[in-house]
């Protein structure tokens, strides 16, 4: 089977069911909305503080102490770097949840609905079924996350004071993009192997919550894909460990490949041959 046909089928599904639009849009929304919300929150807090101060003057009663005011004025201290760093959290949590839900269908739904039976009987192989999925969806997620971080940095630099180094933005964008791509690959692996897209989403969400906590507990919070959100965030506000960055990126790529080959292995191992003769199906 030609790879182009297999890829075309997956691309048609991704675009015609508006899922590509959904993935890109959900990531881009956060790239713009996060810094805007942060700015808006700051303005809201300032307004609240001013209002309360006026009331204090009018009543002669000090409602806020200086320490209380400092808490509300923290939003005034947010600069562009901090805003972008805070946005990484939303990218790698809320946006990822939305993308996982959008990509439930290619993660085992076709097997569950048995729409793959006729193509299988015609000759579809596990490689041609799985490979386009492991290219199209993670690459789209990576590019969306990558561009999204650039947009987020741009919006942050417009709304807040301060500037970035290009390397910081680049490192953050690569980390965020790669992290989202890895999570998608994890979803595809679990979904296709289990033929249960819902199970895949829940498993991945649980994994992204539990694994970093466990790794942190055992002080192994570096050199793994779940360190990428921290790297992306710290790239704006702190010095980062280049070894951690390099190794985490490489380990993520290697794990992605392992997940791909694991999926292929599972599907191939599951192939059934009931006949004594070798039948072409």
């Amino acid at each position, binding site marked *: *089977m*030609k790879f182009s*046909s*297999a890829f*075309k*089928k997956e691309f*048609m*599904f991704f675009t*015609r*069911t508006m899922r590509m639009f959904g993935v890109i849009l959900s990531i881009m929304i956060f790239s713009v909305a996060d810094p805007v919300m942060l700015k808006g929150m700051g303005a809201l807090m300032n307004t609240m503080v001013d209002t309360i101060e006026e009331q204090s003057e009018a009543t002669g009663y000090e409602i806020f102490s200086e320490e209380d005011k400092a808490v509300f004025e923290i939003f005034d201290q947010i600069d562009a770097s901090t805003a972008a760093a805070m946005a990484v959290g939303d990218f790698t949590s809320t946006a990822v949840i939305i993308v996982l839900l959008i990509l439930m269908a290619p993660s085992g739904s076709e097997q569950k*609905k*048995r*729409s793959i*039976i*006729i*193509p*299988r*009987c*015609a*000759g*579809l192989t596990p490689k*041609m079924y799985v490979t386009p999925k492991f290219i199209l969806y993670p690459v789209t997620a990576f590019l969306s996350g990558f561009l999204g971080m650039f947009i987020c940095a741009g919006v942050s630099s417009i709304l807040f004071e301060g500037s970035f180094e290009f390397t910081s933005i680049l490192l953050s964008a690569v980390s965020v993009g790669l992290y989202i791509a890895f999570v998608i690959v994890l979803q595809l692996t679990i979904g296709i192997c289990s033929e249960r897209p819902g199970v895949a989403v829940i498993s991945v969400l649980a994994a992204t919550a539990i694994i970093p906590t466990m790794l942190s507990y055992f002080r192994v919070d570096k050199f793994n894909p779940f360190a990428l959100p921290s790297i992306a965030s710290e790239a704006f506000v702190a010095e980062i460990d280049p070894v951690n960055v390099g190794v985490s990126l490489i380990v993520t790529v290697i794990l992605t490949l392992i997940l791909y080959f694991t999926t292929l292995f599972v599907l191939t191992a599951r*192939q*059934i*041959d*009931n*006949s*004594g*003769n*070798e*039948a*072409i*199906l």
Partner: protein
Amino acid sequence: MVQIKGLKKSYKNFKVLDGLDMSIGKGDVYGFLGKNGCGKSTTMNIICDIIPKDEGEIILGENGEQIKIGYLPETPALFGYMNGYEYLEYIAACAGYKGDVKKRIYEVLEVTGMVEGGRRRINGYSRGMNQRMGIAATIFNNPDLIILDEPTSALDPQGRAEVMAIINNLTNTGATILLCTHILSDVERVANRIGILKNGKMAVEDNIIDIKSRFIHNSIEIGLKSPDEKTITLLQNADFITNFRFFPQSGLAVLDVENADEGMLKAMSILAENGISPTKLQATSPTLEQIYIQTVSDGGMEGGRF
């Protein structure tokens, strides 16, 4: 084309197939019958390597050559986001079709009456169109064995007629077809062989003509021109009959007898003695439906007396 020996399959503790033997020859149109849940779809899925067997031997092809199988599951799920042409292009790619793909797409769409429908997205198809597109995909690569699982289920009469016409055309091409359906008139129309599955085993398997001749005829139909009470009473009280039914609207009397030949002679004798000229007098052979019901019902006989 297909030889199955001692096929067994259980789902947890439920034994679905318990030593099934089955034989489909090249060019056969094999009607595969049985109650709901008796294992027909399981057998088809095992032949197509969709689920594993527990025990038994399956030999596909003659002389060990490889065969191509086209399988249409019940209510086929297609890719709704594609149109028919695109779907068949994808199937062609899956099959590694070497010939002129566009030409072959047009051929199968023509056979299935989907030339115009093929331009529409599949998620807008009616059930009948979906079924026809499924058949188009199934036969695309000229399979040696075509397996159709309930191809007319959930279709309206027109849809059913269209699909059966397609299957009829396929049978004329000499294709080997394994057809699973509950609609026995469809089986009688297209199949030359049937197998009736019961209790996980093949209860009856043979050519339809041979099966019918094996099931003993024991009904005589008498058409009465002007049926009166005297004639009806005469026939009803005849000592050689086991059961009597009369259909006033058609004037048809049906006499169940022990032996059709003997019954015919006695019936003719009674009619002649009383000066009755029937419009019809014949021994009837059992319908496939009667054979099927007799075979699958509890306590039913298998392959013998009916």
